[in-house]
């Protein structure tokens, strides 16, 4: 009984801290990257929610995929995602990550990001404005608080399925094996 209580208290503190400190690795793949600077700087000031930009995947919590992903870029994104330390969250930004958006017919972009990486939250729009981005972060905070943002667990459990999907589009698969 006592151990349960200690564990529960630890979980509450951990969830609270994770919720209020989101370090974002903004992967500016597409045109959506232009919305990130105003979100982070003086006009919309995401720092007041504890959201800060981070430069390296090792230190980041949130992988923000801004826009379409070319197959070549997807390889880098997967590698980046696997270098991040769990718990980690993926945020799909713009309609390109949801269904391909205006790149639906393209021969070298992926359509649905969720098939390749476990996306915790999507922000729709082409492109979403900074208000939308901050709203997405607030939703992510709610998900973390209720313990529903566990895409990283899903990725670990269904690694085979994700790998099959990834290898289907990435023909020259030369990636190191990570053991996290």
């Amino acid at each position, binding site marked *: 009984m006592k151990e349960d209580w200690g564990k529960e208290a630890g979980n509450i503190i951990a969830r609270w801290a994770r919720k209020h400190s989101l370090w974002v690795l903004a992967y500016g793949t597409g045109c959506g990257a232009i919305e990130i600077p105003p979100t982070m700087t003086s006009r919309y*000031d995401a720092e007041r929610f504890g959201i800060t930009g981070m430069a390296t995947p090792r230190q980041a919590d949130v992988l923000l995929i801004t826009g379409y992903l070319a197959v070549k870029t997807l390889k880098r994104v997967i590698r980046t995602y696997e270098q991040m330390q*769990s718990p980690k969250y993926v945020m799909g930004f713009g309609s390109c990550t949801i269904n391909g958006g205006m790149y639906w017919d393209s021969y070298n972009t992926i359509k649905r990001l969720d098939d390749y990486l476990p996306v915790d939250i999507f922000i729709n729009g082409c492109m979403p404005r900074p208000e939308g981005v901050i709203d997405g972060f607030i939703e992510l905070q709610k998900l973390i608080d209720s313990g529903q943002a566990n895409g990283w667990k899903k990725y670990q459990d269904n690694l085979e399925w994700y790998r099959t999907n990834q290898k289907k589009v990435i023909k020259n698969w030369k990636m190191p094996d990570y053991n996290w």
Partner: protein
Amino acid sequence: MDTSFNLWILLMPFVGALVGLTYMGIGRRIIARVQHRYGPPIFQNIVDVLKLYSKKTAITHGVMFHLAPTLAITGTISTLMFLPILTGPHGIYLFSFKGDLILLMYIMVFGCLAMALGAGQSGNPNSAIGVSRGLSQMVGYEAPFVIAMVTLMVQFNTTSVHDIIKAQDSFVHWNMFQSPFAFIAALFAFLGFMGNKPFDVVIAPAEIASGPPSEFGGKYLALMQTNRGMFAFVKLVLYVDLFMGGAANFVSLLAKTFFFYLIPLFVGIVNPRFRTEQAITFFWKWPTVIGLLGFLMVIL
């Protein structure tokens, strides 16, 4: 006496880390206000550290990589242990009777060197660049710092921090006013120590990722952030001891250390980043010359 002594030895690292991290949070808030932003809450850095401790960590690059954050924090705690935190009747002296200023100067560098070794083993090119920049800059600001310290030691004919504090018994006898040249030289070195804006070529956000710690994540980074907060506190307390005559109670300690924390912060807000060689030439030119001038005045 004995219980309170043991208690403070156990508590002081935590107090130091909390104070340092809170100062950093206040600093972020002040920077935000200058940039017309609202800014994060002042305990944001503590939340960040808590989150980092709660993260799972699975990175390996070798033995030194695992040891580096631990060694860095060991260096910082041992520096803290040789500092008189509070003076007067209710003083907190820790082990400071056993060490002197020379030991402090020597042991302060230990954490930086451990970090350099760990970051060097991580194999990340950004880390390597950051380490080389950091060590070069350290060569720069150590010169005025050592000159200032030697000036103080010659002036009071002692190497003990206690005797230097005792010599500054009243406001007008603070070393700030008593030996202004050494103070100015040490203050410039302090700007380099704190790694705020004009001299932040080591971390250099948006240039070399985050420099030496770019391959550290999760709990390693948590240890390093704790170390950063604690080390800031150590440096602040050392400067208060040397130049403002120490502090008799916690209120005056916090006021004095916060005054010292604001100086590099305000300098940092309005200044862009120096390149490495600019920083080194700056340190070797003005602060060193001013420090040598003060040294000459003390000798003559």
